[in-house]
């Protein structure tokens, strides 16, 4: 529980992923397009990966990855991010973290 929340609050936009997960890759592409640099943690590469996976599921994600945190708070999985984006709520949420270089 701690590791997940710690990692989640360390950076602005955090995506918990697995190395082979292409849907997670799609999410990072989306953030890229919106001018946000996301920090990706591949839990299958992490020694405590199993625990992290359980934590994420307990937090409410139907699939452990991708799990997206913005500003330390859990947004959800792909479904939630997509819904938020189409309803126009994602960009305002990301605004403080956008880095257009």
């Amino acid at each position, binding site marked *: 529980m701690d590791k997940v929340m710690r990692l989640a609050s360390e950076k602005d936009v955090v995506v918990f992923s697995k190395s082979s*997960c292409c849907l997670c890759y799609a999410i990072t592409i989306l953030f890229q397009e919106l001018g946000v640099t996301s920090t990706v943690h591949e839990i299958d590469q992490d020694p405590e990966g199993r625990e992290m996976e359980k934590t994420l599921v307990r937090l409410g994600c139907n699939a452990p990855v991708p799990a997206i945190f913005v500003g330390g708070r859990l947004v959800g999985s792909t479904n939630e991010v997509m819904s938020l*984006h189409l309803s126009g709520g994602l960009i305002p949420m990301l605004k403080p973290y956008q880095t257009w270089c």
Partner: protein
Amino acid sequence: MNSPTPQFVPSRLGIYEPIHQIGIWGENFKSNGNPNTSTSVIVEVDNKLENESETTSHEMLTASNNYEQEASKPIDKIQRRLAQNREAARKSRLRKKAYVQQLENSRLKLIQLEQELQRARQQGLYMGGVLEGSHIGFSGTVNSGIAAFEMEYGRWVDVQHRQICELRTALNAHISDIELRILVESGIGHYFELFRMKSTVAKADVFYVISGVWKTSAERFFSWIGGFRPSELLKLDPLTEQQILEVCNLKQSCQQAEDALSQGMEKLQETVSSTVAGGPVDEVSYIPQVATAMEKLEALVSFVNQADHLRQETLQQMSRILTTRQAARGLLALGEYFHRLRALSTLWATRPPEPSLP
């Protein structure tokens, strides 16, 4: 005065000769090789004529086909006209017969084509199911999942068609907004039903969904991750200024989401491809590579679900932005569009074969 022609000999034997001359009167009898019958007919005709006009019977027999005859002119003309009429009538009957024959042939051809089309369609769907479902261990579930979906989808299309007609009637009849709202809600709900069905069959065989084999060929042409592109929904008019802004934003978000998913799909293709290709080629066993690839392919199910989720969300957002009437028109346009694509597919499948080049 009537001078007997060389062809006409008023003896019993010579009676056969006039058969040629009487051709116009009763050509049908020519085919009848039995001279006796012909003779009796001629005799009949002869009698008939004698009843009508004794004096001219002889002349009529001779003059009927012989235009060089120097019979009395008015009788000649009448006879010629009658003969021509009979000829015209005969020709007309023959033409009609030929036309009816042609119609019958066309009808048969049409029935044949319809049967072929039905067979081809069933084969196409079935082949998709059989081919996709023939991998080890899954054939039972896959085939039954696909069969169930195909039946349900057939019904779905029928209901869809009915709904489009209802929408069209409702819009033209200017029913109340409340009633129209009900139609709109059920229309949107119907699409959601399709996404649910697709989700179920995707678990049984995701390749089946993604290949679009369950759709008609023209629809397949426009397919994006197992269905229509969500941004297709956003071609609308007329809109208020506020709506234009909202639709514009929605369009941009939708596009970005589509791009992200497309790139994710490409990455998946690369991953699976390199997995399958990996390992030494000179070794006979490729089981590890194929097994690993199988795991990776599971991700395809999530992509199909995400694509449908995107379609669902776009529909919902449109429903929120538009007025009831606009939404009804939008649904009608969407449904009609797919209906036309299906018709295009049918027409394409039954187009006449191109003449082969020499």
